[in-house]
Structures are given as C-alpha cells and as structure tokens.
C-alpha cells in the first residue's frame, strides 16, 4: 500500500506544491484554512486536476501530466468522506450503502455485503430510514459504510468533524478512530484542528500556504517542530529569536533572557520556543533558569487562565508582554495573591529549538 503525490497547482494567491509519500498508516494533513489541504485531497480523488505532476496509488498511475494520464474519479478506487457526508437524501440507509454496486453483481451477494456493513457500523434497524431521520453520528457511519463497501485502496477524509460542536466532536473522534480500524487501506485525513490530527493520525504533515512545512510521526511533529511555522501551527504561542552565547547558554532576544541548557546541540538554533503550559512557578528562586516576571493581564477560558507575562521589569502598558502562561484557574487564584515579581522557571527540557522560520 503506497500513495505517492507530487503535484503543483496554481491557486488564487499562492501555489500548491505537494510532494509526499505515505504507506499503510493514518496520515493527517494539518493546516490553517486556505492552506490548500482540501485541494490536495480533491486532486488525489480526481475532483480537481493539478496543473502538473504525478499521483500514484499502489503502483497505479492516477495522474501524470507528462504522459497525459488523468484517470476519471469513478475509476480511481478512492473512498471519500465529505464534511457534510453528502448522503443521498432520497435514498434509504441501505440504498445509500449499496449505491456503488452496478448490475453485474448478484442480488444475493449485494444484500450480503450490505448487511455485513450495516452490522459492522451498528446500523441495524435503520436500513429503511432516510438520512434526515438519522443523528450526526449515524450519518457519519452510513457515509463510511458507503465508501468502504466499494473496497477502496485509500480513504480520504475532508474535515469530517469540523461541522460539529465540541461535545459531539469529542465523541465522534473516538468513534471514528474505532470505525477506521475496520479499514485496511491508507487513510488520509485533512483538518485544521491539531487535536483531531493528533488523536486520529500516526503521521502528520503540516501544510502552510500550499507547501509542506514538516512531516513526521505525530510525537516528533508536536514535540520537536523544527521551524517557527510548524511550531505555531502545532499551537506553540511563545517564540523568540535566539542567539547562541556559548555551548550551553542561549539568549532569547525578544525576551531578553539568557537560558542555560545542557547536553543539547545548539549549533544551528536560530529560534526558541516554549509552550504556554510548560512555564512553571519556581519552587525555589535559586532554581536554574528562573526569572522575574510581572503579569500584564489575564484572559480566562472555561477552565484555564492565560496569563500574559513580562520578564525582568514591570510592564508599561497592556501590549508590553513577552510570553503567555497557561495554568488552571485554581492555581492562578492562589498564585495571583503572591508578591511581585513572580519567579517563573523555564524548564530547558521543554524548550523547542528551531533552525528556520519556515513558510509563514
């Protein structure tokens, strides 16, 4: 099982330039809105046509601009899960699932395969219902069953969860992950939500302005992004330019701090970052990498407080801050009564070291 994509397509405002290879594992394409990720999926499916390049699936050429090959959608053996599921509203559940079969298949075999899928996707008793009578989760399962019954070699999922509210999305991620274990081929998942990407995919590819910013297994992508763009897209809020002082000291220029590190190869580091929830209050003011900090202002979310901090000296105004600190509301309630400045520790093991800016 192997998918090879190497395509170029001019889009309004930028050029989509995708070069990737993937095999049997779940691949996620993560990128902000308008980065070209859906277009990539549509090119693989054949719904849109790249300007040039080549797409190959399990040795079959689906598209090759040089050899003028462009296999029509219906012959690509691709399963596509649309964001709105695109169920046929005038067909029942079983008609939807069996729609892809043509007359050459025997009625008995057709019924048997439909029944198998209905059982597999927990749709028993709903065979005769119409899509409008189903819940969102049931609709998603019908759409999956309909795509998988044709035994595609790859399943493309175009933001299947982003139309849902938070509660439902959380539930459906778990369900979708479980349902996808039924499928043996390649799954290719497009999303702008990093949590979805992390929870559903083994390997993640970050897309920014039509170009691949980073690709790797999900732990590396989230823990060790190598460019500023990749760090930002995976949710890192605190980034500063860096200057190497000596083999175990680095200066964060925007923050005005010198941070001690050990056993790190600092050679090409040009930027450093730290995720907002990795900042911590120092237990002992003498701890390594502990700095004086003043809260500038706070912004509360449901269960967390985001504190905007300024290092070294008191802030002049509300825009005068260096980093964001993400802690639980309870903790902040306790800390905010303590005398200023706060002693904030940067744990060097949690630092993200980056070598370039990347495409922003």
């Amino acid at each position, binding site marked *: 099982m192997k998918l090879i994509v190497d395509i170029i397509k001019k889009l309004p405002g930028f050029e989509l330039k995708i070069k990737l290879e993937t095999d049997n594992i779940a691949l996620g394409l993560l990128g902000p809105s308008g980065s070209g990720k859906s277009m990539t999926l549509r090119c693989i499916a054949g719904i849109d046509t790249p300007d040039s390049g080549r797409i190959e699936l399990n040795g079959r050429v689906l598209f090759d601009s040089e050899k003028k090959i462009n296999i*029509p959608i219906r012959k690509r053996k691709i399963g596509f899960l649309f964001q709105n599921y695109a169920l046929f509203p*005038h067909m029942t559940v079983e008609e939807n699932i069996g729609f892809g079969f043509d007359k050459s298949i025997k009625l008995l075999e057709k019924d048997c395969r439909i029944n198998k899928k209905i059982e597999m996707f927990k749709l028993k008793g709903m065979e005769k219902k119409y899509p409008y009578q189903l819940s969102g989760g049931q609709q998603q399962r019908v759409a999956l069953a309909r795509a998988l019954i044709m035994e595609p070699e790859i399943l493309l999922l175009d933001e299947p969860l982003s139309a849902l509210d938070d509660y439902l999305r959380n539930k459906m991620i778990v369900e979708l992950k479980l349902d996808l274990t039924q499928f043996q081929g390649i799954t290719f998942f497009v999303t702008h939500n990093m949590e979805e990407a992390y929870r559903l995919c083994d390997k993640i590819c970050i897309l920014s302005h039509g170009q691949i910013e980073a690709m790797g297994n999900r732990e590396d992508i989230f823990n060790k992004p190598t460019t500023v763009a990749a760090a930002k897209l995976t949710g890192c809020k605190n980034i500063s330019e860096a200057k190497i002082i000596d083999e175990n000291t680095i200066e964060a220029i925007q923050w005005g701090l010198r941070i001690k590190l050990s056993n790190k190869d600092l050679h090409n580091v040009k930027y450093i970052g730290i995720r907002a929830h990795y900042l911590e209050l120092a237990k002992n003011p003498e701890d390594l990498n502990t700095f004086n900090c003043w809260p500038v202002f706070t912004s509360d979310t449901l269960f967390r407080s985001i504190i905007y901090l300024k290092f070294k000296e008191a802030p002049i105004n509300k825009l005068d801050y260096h980093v964001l600190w993400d802690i639980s509301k309870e903790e902040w309630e306790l800390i905010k009564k303590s005398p200023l400045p706060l002693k904030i520790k940067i744990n060097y093991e949690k630092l993200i070291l980056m070598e370039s800016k990347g495409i922003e």
Partner: protein
Amino acid sequence: MLDLSPLWISIKTAFTATFIVFFLGIAVAWFMSRYKGKIRGLLDAIFTLPLVLPPTVVGFILLIIIGKNSPIGKGLSHIGINIIFTWSATVIAATIVAFPLMYRTCLGAFGQIDINMLNAARTLGVSEWKLFWKVAVPLAWPGIASGTTLSFARALGEFGATLMVAGSIPGKTQTIPIAIYFAVESGENNAAIMWVSFIFIISLVVMVLTEKWTEKQYFIVSSARRK
C-alpha cells in the same frame, strides 16, 4: 351544438409539446449545467431567446425556417410532408415557446444540487448515466416538476406563434386561445367565456396535481439543505 374540437386540439398539443420539452429541456439543462466552454453564454442566450422574443417574432422565424420557400420546407414537400398550417405546426410552435421555461427551471434545479453529492457518487464508481438518473434527476425533481407545469401552461396558452405558423383552421389547428380570439372578434361572448373557463380549469387541475405529486419528493430533497 358547440364545436368542442379546440379543447381536444389544445390538450393534445399541450401534452405533446410538454412531453417533448420535458426530455429535451432536462437533457439540455444537464448538459449546460456541466458545460464550461467558451460559447456557454451564447448557447444559454439561444436557449432562452424564445422566452424573451414576442411570439409573433418566433412565428415569423419559424415561417422562414420551415415555410414552403425555405430549404427545409422544400426538402420536406419533396417527400410529401407539409408542416405549415397543420397540427404539427401547433406542436412545434408550442414546443419552442415552452422550451425556455423548462430549460431555465431545470438548469436552476441542477445548479442547486450539492456538488459533493455528485462527486460522492463518482467516487463510488458509478457511471455518469446512473449518476444522472439516480442522483441528479431525483434531487432536481421538484424543479423539473415545476418546469414541466410552467411549460404545460405556456404550451396551452400559446397564441401568437401558433396563429402565424398553423393558422386557425377549425377542427385542425384551432386551439382554445385562438378560438377565444375569434369568438370575441365575432361578438360571441358566451363562447369566449366558456373557452376561458376551460383554460382556467385545465391550468388549475394540472398545477394542483403537480404540487401533490412532488410534495413528498420536495420534502426529502430539501431535507439535505435544512441542516
């Protein structure tokens, strides 16, 4: 006893024209809904033209195209066929003036279909033929039905072009609208009132039946849009 032939001629003409326009309109609209070529605007204008031109202009153009002195008319009279001033001419006139209504309404209905649904069908490996009959037509059905009703009403009411190419031959080409005109002209008001009532009744019955007939389909098709 009043001659009822205009009633039968009108109904026969309207049904025949609607039958032709139904298939022709759907086919052309489906083609145009996917055609993105250079002459799209021109084709669209040509298909819509009979709607905006005065019927007498349509009738005049038809006379030029299929009249006795035109190449087509000459060719046909060679094999013994004459169209002008026959029942066929009433059908042709009604078909042409009704076509744009069917075409326009169907084009709109096909355009309303969620493109993802068509693409979903394609990824499932089905042919364009099956896609058209099993997905596009059912989803566009409410539009197709109202296009059909409009076309029927237009064909039934056709006057100007019909008079020019088919004339007013009682028992042969005289339809109800033409009968009304000549009844009024010769002062037979009672006859005119009767024909007017016939037109009323036929139009109402057809519209109510179509409405009943598409109610359920409309509910199901629009269920995809309600969410």
